[in-house]
């Protein structure tokens, strides 16, 4: 299948799901559940991530008739995941003692990750888990997923200046944590 054909096939599945076809939505869930779950783990940690992913996918289903295709479906789904994670942040705080590192190091990673790279990523995982939820969200969206400041601020319900200041503080803290762990 060419990339164009893949895109057309996905659009067709999306259209069916938008019109209430549950089987088509099942195909979309199968395709996107790992990326949604990964983002959730990075935002709220492993304990709450499955709940966030589930709630985000359910919200996506309810909201699908609103989806106009202005952004890619994956991007739209990520925005819903961020919002859901933020909504459940209070629950995430109760789980603050749980570290993200286990998931970023071990659970479900592709097998070819090894050695130095794995060590660096494990260190990053530990450092990310030490940030406040607000700092972690900004740094994950900006530096891991490459969102713009404007998008990040909009999705987190904060101003762009707050997002920039928070990002700056998060990076400083990350650097300190990473240098301290060496």
């Amino acid at each position, binding site marked *: 299948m060419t990339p164009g054909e893949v895109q057309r096939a996905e659009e067709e599945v999306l259209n069916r799901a938008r019109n209430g076809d549950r089987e088509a939505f099942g195909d979309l869930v199968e395709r996107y559940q790992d990326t949604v779950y990964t983002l959730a783990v990075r935002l709220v940690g492993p304990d709450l991530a499955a709940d966030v992913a*589930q709630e985000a996918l359910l919200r*996506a289903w309810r909201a699908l008739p609103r989806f106009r295709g202005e952004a890619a479906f994956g991007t739209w789904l990520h925005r819903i995941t961020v919002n859901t994670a933020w909504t459940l942040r209070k629950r995430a705080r109760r789980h603050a003692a749980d570290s993200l590192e286990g998931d970023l190091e071990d659970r479900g990673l592709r097998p070819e990750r090894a050695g130095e790279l794995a060590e660096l990523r494990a260190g990053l995982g530990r450092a990310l888990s030490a940030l406040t939820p607000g700092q972690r969200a900004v740094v994950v969206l900006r*530096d891991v997923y490459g969102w713009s400041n404007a998008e990040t601020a909009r999705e987190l319900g*904060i101003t762009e200046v707050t997002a920039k200041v928070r990002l700056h503080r998060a990076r400083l803290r990350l650097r300190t944590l990473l240098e301290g762990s060496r």
Partner: protein
Amino acid sequence: MRGPRCFLAAVFPGEGPASLARHRACCLHCQAAAARKRSLRRALSGLADEVLVAPPGLQLRVLSRLGDQDAADPRRPLVVRAAARYAAAAGLALATGLAFAAGLARRQPRALG
């Protein structure tokens, strides 16, 4: 962080007045911080390639809980929260302004008397 200019240069990279750009160009501290930031960003962007496998059964759980589609805005709770925050800030500013105006109004008759 050496001073306010270094802070501003770090928080608003590539933005700000010409004086800030000049500061960036000649401050060794800012240049070193920018290099460290680039390296950190490179490392973090590498995490984007990693995809964790969703827990088994997630898809089934989602599909078993599908209700009706109602085209509800999935961002609504956050939008409502942000609106509430702005409304609270506006209310506080209004209350402060009114208290200030009332204080001034009370002071003026005394000054005249």
